[in-house]
């Protein structure tokens, strides 16, 4: 957070080296995704179904938890987890904090996506499935879920993009990923535009196609 000051030694890091260092660091950002998104989708669906069926006590509890997560800035949740958990005996490193907070956040937002998808479903679908004699799980997995996934795909992709961008915030509790690395580079080379431009390109390469996909999916509906 300290601006570059007089007397700092300028190091010239060639562009290719900057790109490779930042590229490697970006892998740390992407490393979060499989687990975080997997958990997010899995738990998100479960929470959505529970809340949709209004199972007493659990639904309300989950509702409160989801809303608190959705209503709080990502950074403050990260700080809260990172600084508060040691007091109850859990020491988390930066990466672990990242995994935990990103998973919680993704789950909360995705549960809302799936829940609104459920509520928007045509009742006739449920009825037809039941009339055919399907039990609850057959109905949910064969009929409801596939359709919800299709209609909420744009939002799901949107959430993936959000998660990718949020990984940058984990840098603020010390994790070595692309944004933190770029600041280190910037402090040595004294050229912020180069460093941050490379970072931007990496993010754009991953996020922009996803955004295009999301828009196209939305258009098709």
């Amino acid at each position: 957070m300290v601006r570059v000051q007089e007397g700092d030694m300028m190091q010239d890091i060639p562009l290719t080296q900057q790109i490779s260092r930042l590229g490697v660091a970006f892998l740390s950002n992407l490393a979060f995704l499989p687990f975080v998104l997997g958990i997010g989708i899995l738990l998100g669906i479960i929470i959505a179904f529970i809340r949709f069926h209004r199972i007493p006590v659990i639904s309300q509890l989950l509702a409160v938890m989801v809303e608190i997560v959705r209503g709080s800035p990502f950074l403050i949740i990260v700080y809260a987890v990172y600084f508060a958990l040691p007091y109850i005996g859990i020491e988390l490193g930066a990466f672990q904090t990242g995994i935990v907070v990103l998973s919680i956040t993704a789950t909360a937002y995705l549960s809302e996506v799936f829940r609104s998808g459920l509520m928007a479903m045509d009742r006739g679908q449920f009825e037809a499935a039941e009339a055919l004699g399907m039990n609850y799980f057959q109905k949910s997995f064969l009929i409801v879920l596939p359709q919800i996934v299709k209609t909420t795909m744009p939002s799901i992709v949107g959430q993936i993009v959000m998660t990718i961008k949020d990984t940058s915030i984990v840098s603020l509790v010390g994790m070595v990923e692309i944004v933190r690395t770029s600041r280190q580079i910037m402090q040595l080379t004294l050229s912020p535009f180069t460093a941050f431009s490379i970072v931007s390109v990496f993010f754009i390469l991953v996020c922009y196609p996803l955004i295009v996909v999301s828009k196209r999916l939305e258009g098709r509906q």
Partner: protein
Amino acid sequence: MLNMRIVSLYLPDFFEALLETLKVAALSGIFALIIGTVVGVLSTFKSKFAIIPVGIYTGFIRSTPLLVQLYFVHYGLPITGLMLTSFQSAIIAFSLNSGAYISEIVRGGLSSMDKGQAEASRALGLSWAQTMRLIILPQVFKKILSPLISQFSYLIKDTSLAAVLVIPELTYTARKIAARTYMPFESFGVPMLMYFGIYLVLALLSRLVDRKKRSSSDIRRWFGFRKVI
């Protein structure tokens, strides 16, 4: 559950920080609205000179993290000779960020506008600018009020990143007090409740707006549009 003594001791600090958060959000929000409206209107032009820059701007903002954009402004602009305070950097970054999202909302509102409105207006002899100002934009803003409120809710959460620039808003203050008191549950709990409170208020407002829009054909109550003339 929470140590109320500590809470009450630092409550004034938290409220001051809350005010700072709201100040940053309000200022950024106003600029973002202006930027978003201009860019949104531009995006409806047919010319390549409008569509391409708008596309680059919104594409960049939406594809890159706010943190990176913040660093770009804070560390990058001084290189071009422009010296900014942390507060100014934050406002610029948040305004540009939110502005892009607002422009998308405005664009959606404009494209779902009934073409007949513009036609009637032009047939009456009103210029393009008058048509926009008197007929189209007032109706568009009424339509997009709810998404705009949601966008403001996101902006409030985004202001937490101002903590990175040592701006004494809610998240920064939470950390500061947590470090001072060694009581993180209270130090982070109160700010989180405050954020949540704002979030709830805005969500309820949004729902209220939706309900009013659906039931009311008496639009006069909304903006007192007698003043249009």
